[in-house]
């Protein structure tokens, strides 16, 4: 009877990847993406494949639960798990949306100037949302204030007006793959730059800018 709840947990979803991911690995990936997005000062690459696959798993499990007999002992366990996964997914998407709103002109600019074949920063849904947010806000500012100002002051360059993410923010990280000779910029003029090795499993506090590529590659996890 439990087979029906778990049979073919969207096999096609998780095996679309080159390295076949188990559902458990998928959830791990989601949690990693959640933490990275939460702690990174800039918007990270979108992980639409993970989001879509997780949603498929949830939808599949939900519909199984609908079919199940009342009083089924396993139902509440499945439901608790669904609630946990849904929380991580929602929180992840909220983090991203918050950053999209906060940096909206820069996020759109980055997307516009993206080279062919480069991965997209925003999912198609996020892109639509960002454009609407931009248009809505620009229209509002123009209507309420800008068009009532002197002629030479009626334009505002939102790219200049809205601050960019501060990539020099400090972050905590845990090392997943050993890295050598990571450059540490000095904080004051009388300090000298130096390098550190990041051993696997070690934890560090440092500026985001230097280790940003390592977050992208999965070599470090923000914590």
């Amino acid at each position: 009877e439990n087979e029906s709840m778990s049979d073919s947990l969207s096999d096609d979803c998780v095996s679309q990847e080159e390295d076949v991911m188990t559902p458990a690995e998928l959830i791990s990936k989601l949690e990693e993406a959640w933490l990275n997005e939460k702690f990174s000062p800039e918007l990270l690459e979108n992980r639409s494949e993970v989001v879509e696959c997780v949603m498929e798993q949830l939808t599949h499990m939900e519909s199984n639960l609908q079919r199940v007999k009342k009083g089924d002992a396993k139902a509440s366990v499945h439901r608790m798990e669904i609630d946990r996964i849904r929380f991580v997914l929602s929180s992840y998407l909220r983090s991203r949306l918050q950053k999209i709103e906060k940096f909206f002109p820069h996020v759109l600019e980055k997307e516009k100037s993206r080279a062919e074949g480069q991965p997209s920063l925003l999912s198609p849904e996020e892109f639509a949302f960002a454009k609407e947010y931009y248009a809505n806000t620009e229209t509002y500012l123009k209507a309420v204030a800008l068009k009532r100002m002197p002629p030479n002051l009626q334009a505002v360059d939102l790219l200049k007006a809205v601050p960019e993410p501060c990539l020099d923010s400090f972050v905590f990280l845990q090392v997943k793959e050993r890295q050598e000779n990571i450059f540490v910029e000095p904080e004051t003029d009388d300090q000298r730059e130096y390098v550190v090795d990041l051993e696997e499993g070690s934890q560090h506090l440092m500026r985001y800018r230097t280790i940003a590529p390592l977050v992208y590659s999965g070599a470090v996890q923000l914590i």
Partner: protein
Amino acid sequence: MFCEKAIELIRELQRNSEGQLPAFNEDGLRQILQEMEALYEQNQADVNKAKSAARSDLIPSIKLRHCCLLRNQRCIMAYLYDRLLRIRALRWEYGSVLPANVRFHMSAEEVQWFSQYKKSLASFMRSLGGGAGLDITQDMKPPKSLYIQVRCLKDHGEFEIDDGTVILLKKNSQHFLPRWKCEQLIRQGVLEHVVS
């Protein structure tokens, strides 16, 4: 002194902590815009004089007025934008229907902005997971799989918990229920958490 009204607008927001929205200061805004118009006209006049009558002594005051114009513009933009951020936060706090006392403090254009923002957000949430949709304004806190003791404050009829069992919520009855399931009913005043 120039730009004083502009600073007053900013201070108004600083005085009201995060989450609060004071009434939209249409008067304050209008006064600043009027000041900008006056400064601009004075500058236009002086710029012409400076060019035609070679009055380079007017240049410092032209520059000063220009700085004031930019500062006024900046303060107005900051005021308007900060209010939008507060309004946006309210969507996430209260849901898509704002409390009346908040709406009362919003300008018509702010209401319009909010309405558009809501729509965008709803459309985004609907489109998630290839159209399956997900309400990300829910699940704001991690779920707890814990049970709590509650007392029923008013009749609420049948209430189904996850494993299918149905509880009858009769006034004054007590139950041991999943906490997360009770939270909404506790907020609504139907149930009361009994702390032993």
